[in-house]
């Protein structure tokens, strides 16, 4: 038989995703209870590298019915290949309305909704070792970037190293740096400037990006600010970069700016005790009380087959309560404002959810929206080159601009 869903047995709907197994299990459970009444069977496969796989399969004309795509840029490519169906009529208006502002835009191409965010994560969260932090009496929330700079100085003057930082990530080395940039650009430039930058109407070689770079280098390149110094950033793995916060002999570094998923990388004994060990606050706005968009990501469901059953399944995925089974036992975060926060397994997760549902704008990870050449190419690479001192900022920015595909 065929592993694609476009095959003969139309009562089966195939879903491919790369989401973590517990999330998938939870979603599947909820989904089955929703659609089994219609006689629909779900075949959900976990695959690696879904972006590449799906593009290949699309060109070969052999696809699943529904695929979860983590990158808006890929959704866009899929749409331009006419491989996916618009969801505007598939998803109920109520479900759309309950989505956090900004989440729909990420999946919208040329005014039509193609990708529906099903599970979300938040970036621009600053984690700290709770016990040590409180013992040192550092503030548990920061109001502005200036305050952040001040806090950095304060920690340093205590003889500590303020920042943990690492951007090494196998083939994707550099992406944590782009998250930093996106956060900074969003905070300095606001939603419109951010979107204009993402669509390259504002080039990299622009004031707002330079301003972000400036702050980035202030925080991270300054002598003594980062564990291991500037040269260690590019060689330190993002997953373990935060671990020194929990060193037995006291934190090796004190703050780690990452996405919500990073807790999964923390040492086991920390993970077992997250609420006691780990504290978090959001990356502050440029000015206290100012516009505070947040950056996030997630997996978007796309519809590759316009059969009724597939549509039904997709509609079910859009419902708020689809996450009810996933939330308690995984890192799942719902993109719906009205999701029952009590279902989350711990306070930490609840605090991310609050960040999301309370935001003025959820901005989808910019590098994921940019064309692959940039978003998974030069943006990572030239940032890495800049951080590791192989390129100066001017070169890096102009390289990225130059790599933007012409079409």
């Amino acid at each position, binding site marked *: 038989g065929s592993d694609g869903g476009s095959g003969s047995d139309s009562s089966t709907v195939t879903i491919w995703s790369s989401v973590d197994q517990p999330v998938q299990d939870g979603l599947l459970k909820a989904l089955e209870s929703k659609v089994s009444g219609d006689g629909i069977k779900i075949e959900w496969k976990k695959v690696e*590298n879904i*972006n*590449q796989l799906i*593009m*290949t399969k699309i*060109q070969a004309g052999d696809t699943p019915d529904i695929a979860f795509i983590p990158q808006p840029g*890929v959704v866009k*490519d899929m749409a*331009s*290949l006419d491989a996916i169906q618009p969801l505007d009529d598939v998803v109920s208006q109520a479900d759309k309305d309950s989505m956090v502002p900004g989440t729909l835009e990420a999946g919208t191409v040329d005014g039509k909704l193609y990708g529906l965010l099903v599970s979300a994560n938040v970036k621009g969260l600053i984690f700290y070792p709770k016990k040590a932090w409180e013992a040192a009496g550092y503030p548990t929330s920061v109001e502005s970037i200036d305050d952040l700079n001040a806090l950095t100085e304060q920690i340093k003057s205590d003889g500590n190293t303020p920042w943990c930082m690492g951007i090494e990530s*196998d*083939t*994707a*080395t*550099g992406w944590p740096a782009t998250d930093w940039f996106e956060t900074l650009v969003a905070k300095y430039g606001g939603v419109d400037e951010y979107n204009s930058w993402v669509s390259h109407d504002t080039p990299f070689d622009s004031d707002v990006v330079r301003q972000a770079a400036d702050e980035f280098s202030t925080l991270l390149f300054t002598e003594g600010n*980062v*564990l*291991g*110094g500037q*040269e*260690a950033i*590019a*060689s*330190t*793995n993002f997953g373990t970069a935060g671990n*020194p916060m929990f060193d037995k002999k006291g934190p*090796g570094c004190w703050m780690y700016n990452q996405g919500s998923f990073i807790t999964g990388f923390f040492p086991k004994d920390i993970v077992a005790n997250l609420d006691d060990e780990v504290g978090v606050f959001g990356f502050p706005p440029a000015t206290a009380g100012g516009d505070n968009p947040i950056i996030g990501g997630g997996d978007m469901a796309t519809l590759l087959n316009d059969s009724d059953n597939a549509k039904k399944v997709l509609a079910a995925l859009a419902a708020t309560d689809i996450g009810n089974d996933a939330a308690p036992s995984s890192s799942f975060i719902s993109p719906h404002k009205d999701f029952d926060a009590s279902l989350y397994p711990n306070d930490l997760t609840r605090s991310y959810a609050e960040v999301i549902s309370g935001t003025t704008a959820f901005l989808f990870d910019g590098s994921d929206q940019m*064309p*692959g*050449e940039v978003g*998974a*190419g030069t943006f*990572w*690479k030239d940032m*890495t*080159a800049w951080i*590791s001192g*192989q390129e100066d900022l001017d070169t890096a920015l102009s*390289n990225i601009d*130059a790599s933007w*595909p012409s*079409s």
Partner: protein
Amino acid sequence: MLAKALTALITVAIGIGGAMLVYYLLNKIAELLPERWEDRIKPYLYILPAFLAISVYLIYPAVLTVINSFKDRFSRNWVGTQNYSDLLSSPAFRDTLLNTLLWILIVPAVTVILGLLVATLADRLEPSGEKLAKTIIFLPMAISMVGAATIWRFVYYAAPAGQSQIGLQNALLGVFGKDPVAWLQQSQFHLNSLLLMVVLLWSQIGFSMVLLSAAVKGVPVDTLEAARIDGAGERQIFFRVVVPQIKGTIITVFITVTIGVMKIFDIVYVMTNGNFNTNVLGNEFYNQFSTNFNSGAAAAIVVMLMLAVIPIMWYQVRHFKAEEANA
């Protein structure tokens, strides 16, 4: 599971049996032909299945690739030579070419030399020792290239100074009181490229060792004996009697590795993904192909590779001619 194993077994039997049957039938067909034709047609029948496989899996895609190299990213519209000019005009691409050249200059030669070294030296051990040594050298081959890259990322790994080093090289530096070095970022003298090559060599010497070892053992013992009688030392025997007689295999290995290196990507992709000036053509192809989904540019790279292989083939032809001349 038993049922599964059984099904698998049956499938395997059908697959293998089918293949045998194909040849049996092909041969029968040839034998049905009139005698004059039989011998003329037979060679073609013998290469037919291979040729079919190659046509479908290599030639047809290769032709498509050539065509696609003149089309846009989704292979829809003709764009002339734009994919080529875009690539060639990018300074980064020129660095990539340069790096690739470096790989081609270093890796095949070292692979052959090391493989030959191991094959020859191990050949002199007692059988058990030989087996052990060869297995160890071969071991990395049993690990996928991606796995190899992962292993070596640990060897090269640099934790921030002051943290405990989990990478072997930096731990050793630490023993001498030196600061950790981010090895894969050291692009001066292409050190990091060389370190990546080390990984490839580490994982691929087994390939050349196995082939060369078979060849070394195939050298007629009489000629070795004759050389010993003629007063040649082991080294002279090796260079003057063994090497010339296994030249064919050496060339085979050399060319295979060269072509392999031309399209190498996994190691570079996993370890640096071309960062820090370590990019190579294969990785560039892979990124164009499966990150940027730009099949036009990817195709153009492949076409360039295909062109680059021509001189190598020219060399092989000359070797054949020479071989035939004294056959």
